């Protein structure tokens, strides 16, 4: 949108001044550092994080003790005193084979995080090596018209994150492409709004799982003869369908409740129908449309995990599910790592949307 950028347009303003103005816009204003703001903005948030980790640590410890006591008790009743002593010694030694399976402590989660990163490094090194090895062969195969050999090893945790992001963006784009135009059309006509309202109200609360099954029924048949990645298609369409309702409802509402004054202006200026939509109605409903899009993106990210889990398409959801099924010693802490990663990415996505919203809309007061 061309009116979005408010760069100083005076011709005689020198480049340096413009750059300064832009920098002032982009960089947040640094607050004056005194004791109070330091306390409020740094110390207290830091203290709350430490408190959270402390509580988690204590809780995990007590859960660990309950589980350990139970294990020793069980060994005592089943196999006698010797076995119980052996079990107690085994748990105390930290041996992997006999650790109680419960909520992992913060330290364990941190270790798992490092393991996952190291694992990613190994896998990407492996991948690079594979690529170097097959480069010559692939060139030959390409010349012969054959498909190149691709790496089929297990994806790392970081790869899974990018797969999930890809799916969520595809789903979000689908929601955007469907919901915004339909919302505008429905918003413009009260007859259409009334006739489609029941449909929206019925489909809005439908669970992601049901959407997935519905999409599965259709896509399965449609992709019968092709070798496309149907798991990806199914999951991104389901994500899009689940998440688009917020945008649809908000767009329709934004378009239908444009300030009457603006409509009067459009009439007095005698704008044509299309110009009225693009120059008056759309800009004025942009804040609401973006609020809808923000909700859509966060719903999409939330729903994605469940859908990946069920659709068995690769990504964070299937990572969590596989770790749970796996039941290895550090599975639980890997699940917690995934939880934090999902949370942080969701937060970042919302921030990005908020920034875009503030850039394109005239309503500069949008906040979290």
């Amino acid at each position, binding site marked *: 949108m061309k*009116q979005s950028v*408010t760069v100083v347009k005076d011709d005689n303003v020198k480049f340096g001044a413009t750059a300064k103005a832009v920098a002032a816009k982009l960089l947040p204003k640094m607050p004056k550092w005194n004791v109070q703001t330091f306390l409020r903005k740094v110390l207290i948030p830091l203290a709350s994080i430490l408190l959270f980790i402390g509580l988690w640590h204590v809780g995990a410890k007590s859960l660990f003790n309950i589980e350990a006591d139970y294990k020793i008790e069980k060994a005592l009743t089943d196999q006698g005193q010797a076995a119980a002593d052996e079990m107690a010694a085994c748990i105390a030694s930290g041996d992997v084979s006999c650790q109680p399976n419960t909520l992992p402590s913060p330290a364990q989660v941190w270790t798992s995080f490092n393991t996952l990163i190291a694992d990613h490094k190994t896998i990407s090194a492996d991948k690079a090596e594979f690529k170097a090895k097959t480069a010559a062969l692939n060139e030959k195969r390409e010349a012969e018209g054959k498909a190149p050999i691709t790496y089929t090893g297990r994806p790392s945790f970081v790869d899974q994150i990018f797969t999930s992001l890809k799916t969520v963006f595809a789903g979000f784009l689908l929601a955007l492409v469907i919901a915004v135009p339909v919302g505008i059309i429905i918003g413009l006509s009260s007859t259409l709004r009334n006739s489609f309202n029941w449909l929206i109200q019925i489909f809005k609360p439908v669970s992601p799982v049901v959407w997935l099954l519905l999409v599965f029924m259709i896509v399965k048949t449609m992709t019968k003869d092709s070798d496309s990645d149907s798991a990806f298609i199914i999951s991104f369409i389901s994500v899009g369908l689940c998440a688009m309702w917020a945008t649809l409802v908000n767009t329709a509402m934004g378009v239908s409740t444009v300030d009457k004054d603006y409509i*009067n202006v459009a*009439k*007095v200026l*005698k704008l044509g129908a299309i110009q009225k939509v693009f*120059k*008056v109605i759309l800009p*004025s409903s942009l804040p609401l449309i973006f609020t809808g899009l923000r909700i859509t993106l966060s719903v999409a990210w939330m729903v994605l995990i469940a859908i990946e889990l069920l659709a068995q398409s690769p990504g964070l959801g299937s990572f969590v599910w596989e770790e749970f099924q796996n039941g290895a010693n550090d599975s639980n802490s890997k699940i917690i790592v995934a939880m934090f990663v999902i949370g942080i990415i969701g937060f970042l996505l919302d921030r990005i949307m908020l920034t875009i919203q503030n850039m394109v809309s*005239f309503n500069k007061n949008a906040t979290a």
Partner: protein
Amino acid sequence: MAYLELKNINKTYGTGAEATEVLTDINLSIEEGEFVAIVGFTGSGKTTLVNLINGLLKPTSGEVLFKGEPVKGTSHERGVIFQNYSLLPWLTVGQNVSMAVKEAFPKASKTELKERVTEYVKMVNLLPAINKRPKELSGGMRQRVSVARALAMNPEMIIMDEPLGALDALTRGNLQDEILKIWSKDKRTALLITNDVDEGIYMADRIIPLKPGPNATLGPEFKINIDRPRDKTALNDNPEYKKTRNAIIEYLMGIGEARKSASKKEYVLPDVAPKSFVA
């Protein structure tokens, strides 16, 4: 033939039992080049009347004739200055004006458009603020943008709906002068709706009071026989000004009183007497 003519206009909102007749039997004719002010209480149907003339509303019965032709919808020949400025908040001052110019002069070249926009923004002394958005401007500046937008379309008639109502007295005075200057320069026809009798007397050739609604109708007209350009400071001592002002205010107060005493509702008082506790 009058330039703008309203013939037996009635305007009713709603239908059936909920119908309220806002305007009843409005007759008005304005000559070309004239400056007419309509003065009325708030809520008397002034904005409805304006919207009938500029074509945003259709009368329930009666006819609005502009240059002899019945008014069908809005037209670029009648520029409107709205009560609440109605600027598009996502556009800058320049863009707000240029949007109107583009519509009024679809064949103009880019440089012509730009020149025209600059000319009118300059006319209302807002050139330094041309790249600002309405939110960054004061109320008076916003209304000046609204004036520039209406005039840049080069309308033959300017319709102003309480344009200065929300402004402080000083800004109001300045803008009155600016509007008068523009009006006298090209001798456009102007219709001013206001609730300020002094503003009407200072600016208009004729003042017509609007009796308060529902069933609002126009009262007798008052001619203002004061030579132009009028001097605001000297106006207070002008006997003609005093006479007209008193007459109009007396008339308006009279309707106000009549309205109060016209209430026909009778209240039935309960037939009760204090109870006697003495045995």
